[in-house]
């Protein structure tokens, strides 16, 4: 086998074409893809690229760490639906991207990541700042390239954008040796894409859709599980229309939130480990489960043995490898969620006779709301509620990973799609704040709120420098419980309260920290103070940091303990004799609303 990729042959007339350096070809190719912003950090191996960028007219956001750059690109991609583009230098610059690549891979986010590499003449010799990024990134990218000649660059960039954004989206990395960026070549227009091994099935099989419609007509306890695939396909409206047409209630995965408005009377809320009782009950008891663009993550299914045990399972997914991977599937449908929903809506499907089921689920939802106990201090759940109330569920909310993330998912009632940015599959602490920066760059007119934990924020808080510099009015809400809260919760519940390394008594003074970075900072510990601050700061376009000192020791409930089934959910009721209990339906729209037949 050949060691290197085949070099393209020069087209006729190439000789007369103007010669460009590899770096210039790269910039030109990015422009032709419509790229208008890059997230990156320079260094030796990409100096030629940065030189070409100097007067190229593409915006560049200089984060303070490469991890910040790639998470910002993820936030940008999630909100804009367009690929986030990242540049980093070889060696440490590139290795700093590994977490973000893996995060984007697991959450199917389109990224094109360009890493510098040492010159081809010294590659393999442990040269200064050489790291084997091509092989390191192979398992955590959808595809990756190492370019050996400037003539390949235009084609590789074209392919990279195509692969990143089509089928199941994902990150694509291009490793670019330094000499390739300075060598000259004509700009070789990328011809028609030549990717015979990559032909995602978009249009679903009509026969399979027919089977699904028959199953729907027969079902009496149907439920739709809608994941991020619906959002990637930009099919939220179709999802709602399909649910309304058939009267089938909808459960969202963590990453699917927003596709159906949280207040919709057919919405049951989020399913899974910290989902609503009614969502999990529906997943457990249904006789037909229609999964649209979710991958049956273990945080959603709990013990898969007890997942939808009585159901006929239909699964619509653009990625055939997800079908049947975790849950046995009776009706596999490979295709894009939008294409599938369009066709389903065009079919004469008899709505299932599910009146009794909907009425039952409504009763379950009403009987099992979220709850928390007032303790005199600021409740983290209440912080999210306040933000939800004030923004009417219309802001862009990003989170980090931990308890605050789950509270945001439970209590923020998303009324619109593409407003929710969180690290689902990898659960990457440090994601939330830089992701908010990327989200704000993608949607400057929108209110962008980063709900973060005290521990996770400290992993990437160096990016505070960007708010002032790039005039980004991100609102940072720290749910400060002086703990690695989620770890503390598991230690309380499963490790006999042995709080091993999960308490964070020492914290920086976030107010001073904000001031040091030239932005307004506050610390609050009462609802009144917080309300006043939010009223003042939530709706202008200036950055603000609010350190919310919330009840320490609060737990996220309800919970399906690890390894347990959906029916083994605990913490659905407040403890006996708890005095001041607050009950909330959170994001289960079915509760308290009229649910009528379609």
């Amino acid at each position, binding site marked *: *086998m*050949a*060691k*290197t*990729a*085949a070099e393209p042959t020069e087209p006729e007339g190439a000789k007369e074409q103007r010669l460009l350096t590899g770096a210039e070809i790269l910039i030109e190719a990015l422009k032709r893809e419509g790229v208008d912003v890059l997230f990156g950090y320079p260094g030796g191996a990409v100096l030629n690229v940065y030189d070409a960028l100097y007067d190229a007219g593409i915006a560049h956001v200089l984060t303070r760490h490469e991890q910040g750059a790639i998470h910002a690109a993820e936030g940008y991609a999630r909100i804009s639906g367009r690929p986030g583009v990242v540049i980093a230098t070889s060696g440490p610059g590139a290795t700093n991207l590994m977490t973000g690549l893996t995060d984007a891979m697991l959450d199917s986010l389109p990224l094109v990541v360009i890493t510098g590499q040492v010159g081809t003449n010294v590659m393999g010799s442990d040269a200064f700042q050489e790291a084997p990024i*091509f*092989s390191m990134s*192979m*398992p955590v990218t*959808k*595809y990756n390239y*190492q370019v050996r000649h400037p003539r390949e660059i235009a084609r590789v960039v074209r392919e990279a954008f195509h*692969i990143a954004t089509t089928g199941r989206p994902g990150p694509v990395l291009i490793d670019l040796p330094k000499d390739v960026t300075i060598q000259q070549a004509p700009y070789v227009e990328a011809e028609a894409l030549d*990717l*015979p*091994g*990559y032909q995602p*099935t978009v249009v*679903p*099989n009509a*026969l*399979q859709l027919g089977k699904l419609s028959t199953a729907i007509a027969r079902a009496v306890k149907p439920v739709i599980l809608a994941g991020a695939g619906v959002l990637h396909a930009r099919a939220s409206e179709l999802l709602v229309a399909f649910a309304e047409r058939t009267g089938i209630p909808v459960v969202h995965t963590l990453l699917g939130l927003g596709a159906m408005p949280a207040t919709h009377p057919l919405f049951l809320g989020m399913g899974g480990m910290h989902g609503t009782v009614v969502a999990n009950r529906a997943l457990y008891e249904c006789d037909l489960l229609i999964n649209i663009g979710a991958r049956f993550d273990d945080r959603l299914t709990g013990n898969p043995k007890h997942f939808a045990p009585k159901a006929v399972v239909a699964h619509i997914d653009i*990625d*055939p*490898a997800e*079908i*049947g*991977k975790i849950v046995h599937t009776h009706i*596999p*449908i*490979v295709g894009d969620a939008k294409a599938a929903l369009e066709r389903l809506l065009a079919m004469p499907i008899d709505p299932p006779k599910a009146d009794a089921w909907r009425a039952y689920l409504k009763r379950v939802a009403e009987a099992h709301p979220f709850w928390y106990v007032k303790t005199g201090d600021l409740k983290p759940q209440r912080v999210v509620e306040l933000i939800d109330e004030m923004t009417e569920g219309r802001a862009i909310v990003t989170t980090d990973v931990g308890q605050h993330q789950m509270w945001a998912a439970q209590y923020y009632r998303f009324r619109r799609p593409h407003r929710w940015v969180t690290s689902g599959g990898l659960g990457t602490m440090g994601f939330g704040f830089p992701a908010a920066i990327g989200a704000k760059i993608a949607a400057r007119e929108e209110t962008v709120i980063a709900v973060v934990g005290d521990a996770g924020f400290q992993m990437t808080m160096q990016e505070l420098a960007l708010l002032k510099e790039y005039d980004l009015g991100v609102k940072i809400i720290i749910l400060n419980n002086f703990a690695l809260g989620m770890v503390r919760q598991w230690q309380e519940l499963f490790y006999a309260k042995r709080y091993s390394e999960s308490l964070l008594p020492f914290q920086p003074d976030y107010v001073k920290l904000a001031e040091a970075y030239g932005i307004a900072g506050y610390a609050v510990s009462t609802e009144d103070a917080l309300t006043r601050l939010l009223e003042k700061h939530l709706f202008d376009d200036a950055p603000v940091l609010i350190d919310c000192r919330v009840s320490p020791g609060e737990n996220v409930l309800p919970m399906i303990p690890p390894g347990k089934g959906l029916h083994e959910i605990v913490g659905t009721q407040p403890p006996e004799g708890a005095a001041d209990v607050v009950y909330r339906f959170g994001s289960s729209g079915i509760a308290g609303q009229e649910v009528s037949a379609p």
Partner: protein
Amino acid sequence: MKQLLSLLVRDQAGVLNRISGLFLRRGYNIDSITVGCSERPGLSRMTIVLDVEDKKAAEQVKKQLHKQIDVLKVIDLTERSVVARELALIRVNASMAERAEIDHIIQPFRARILDVGRSSVTIEVTGGSEKIDALIELLRPYGIKELARTGLTAFARELDVGQEAEMKDIIGTA
């Protein structure tokens, strides 16, 4: 269970890494893997023998392979009639006196002696893996000094007919 797969892959830098890395990451055990040119320029053929848990795992393997951008075709030969061959080189201890005996043993296997040394002979044998296993067992008493096996390479008889059914399987719309 054993799974026998034939892959057509783009002859790109790193393609072997991609495939073996996928098996490692997803916890599939490789019995053997062979790579070489195929009938089409720019494409290589890989023959892979895997040890998988069950049918469901075997299905997953195929889907994961098919998802690889450098993989053009995944053909499952497990339950197909195939032509499959492996080559082994076996160096066994052999005194002058034992050589005739060894010659006799290898005859029915259509193996042959490639090289003769002072105290050993090197035997070449081609065939299905079980045949090679059998020969090795027969030669073991003489003392095997060195052994090298290529792993199985294979394809289906009447490739085209079966393949169509196979592709449907892979994209799950059959």
